[in-house]
């Protein structure tokens, strides 16, 4: 059964200066968020495979939307992340079922690579809850300039029987990174870490 989507929102954030210093080119990141019905709200269900299938479907849809918002070719994506917020009648495990088993494969297929783990966060919350989507480099999780997070929210979601699912992508790291560590031009991008 496919996802019953009430709403989709995209956010494109561009930082052009920080502390008065120009950021040129601007750092850019985008998130796509879907608000879907939680088929298991209000009851305990052992087998969560229906939610895993919804995760697979949303992985593809939301990645396409977020990359389209950035207006870049999928191969230019530098970092990514995902998150979900379950309405009050669902359980945190519902977010896990959407996010973890099947959502990642279509993300990686669409952007062409993605050796690194897709960092994630999840929570249960009411309408307007803020989702802080963690961000990490798509091929090497240790790239320090790309450790980041993006906050998104939708004022009327998630309702009690809904789940809010987000995928974020960027074409850059933090605005003026200067805390050292592995840089993106040093990575091998094979083991997902370095």
């Amino acid at each position, binding site marked *: 059964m496919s996802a019953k989507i009430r709403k989709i929102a995209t*956010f494109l954030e561009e930082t052009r*200066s920080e502390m*008065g210093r120009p950021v040129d080119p601007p750092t850019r990141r985008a998130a796509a968020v879907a608000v879907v019905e939680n088929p298991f709200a209000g009851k305990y269900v052992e087998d969560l495979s229906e939610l895993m299938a919804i995760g697979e479907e949303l992985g593809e849809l939301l990645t396409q939307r977020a990359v389209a918002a950035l207006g870049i070719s999928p191969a230019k994506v530098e970092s990514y992340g995902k998150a979900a917020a379950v309405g009050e009648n669902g359980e945190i495990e519902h977010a896990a079922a959407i996010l973890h088993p099947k959502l990642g494969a279509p993300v990686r297929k669409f952007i062409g690579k993605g050796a690194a783990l897709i960092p994630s966060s999840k929570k249960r919350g009411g309408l307007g809850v803020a989702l802080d989507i963690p961000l990490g480099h798509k091929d090497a999780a240790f790239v320090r300039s790309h450790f980041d997070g993006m906050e998104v929210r939708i*004022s009327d979601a998630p309702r009690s029987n809904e789940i809010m699912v987000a995928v974020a992508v960027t074409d850059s790291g933090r605005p003026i990174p200067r805390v050292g560590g592995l840089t993106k031009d040093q990575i091998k991008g094979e083991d997902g870490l370095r």
Partner: protein
Amino acid sequence: MPEVQVRKRLISVEETFHEGGPLASKPLRRATAVAVIRNPYAGHYVENIAPFMDDLKPLGLEMAKALVSALGGDAKAVEGYGKGAIVGSAGEIEHGALWHAPGGYGMREVLGGAKAIVASTKKVGGPGSRLDVPITHINASYVRSHFDSIEIGIADAPRADELLLALVMTTGGRIHARAGGLKASEIKGEDGLR
């Protein structure tokens, strides 16, 4: 003449398919454009602030164009609009009022002369403050189906010496509008009201 210094820009698009009722034949799309700029008058009282309105005109135009493009590129698809401002804590509410003329100008310019007054709101607030931006029909303020609002905000803005400026556009009225009143199909669109 103070220069307009943009730190950050956020474009969001929200697409609603239903809200518990029948699936809409055409999903409602609502876009917001938010710019975070330095407040040239923060921290002290300045009597003559009006000239800054002209400086803001190019930004108003740029944001209005970004909204039309986020909604698909056709200005004729836009049916509702609104605007708002959040003034950082070192500024005064009057600084937010500087956005009325350039924000309205930008939207009328790209929409080809919308007749209705642009609904607006403003406040002084800290980083992460949210603003419910009112929305009404672009040619007739009394169209009841198009009375709407959308929440905007950015986690790290406005800082004390910043202004957060917002424009919003929509492609239609509320998704399941059925509270009567003047319909969009009934308007004359001459006086901006009916």
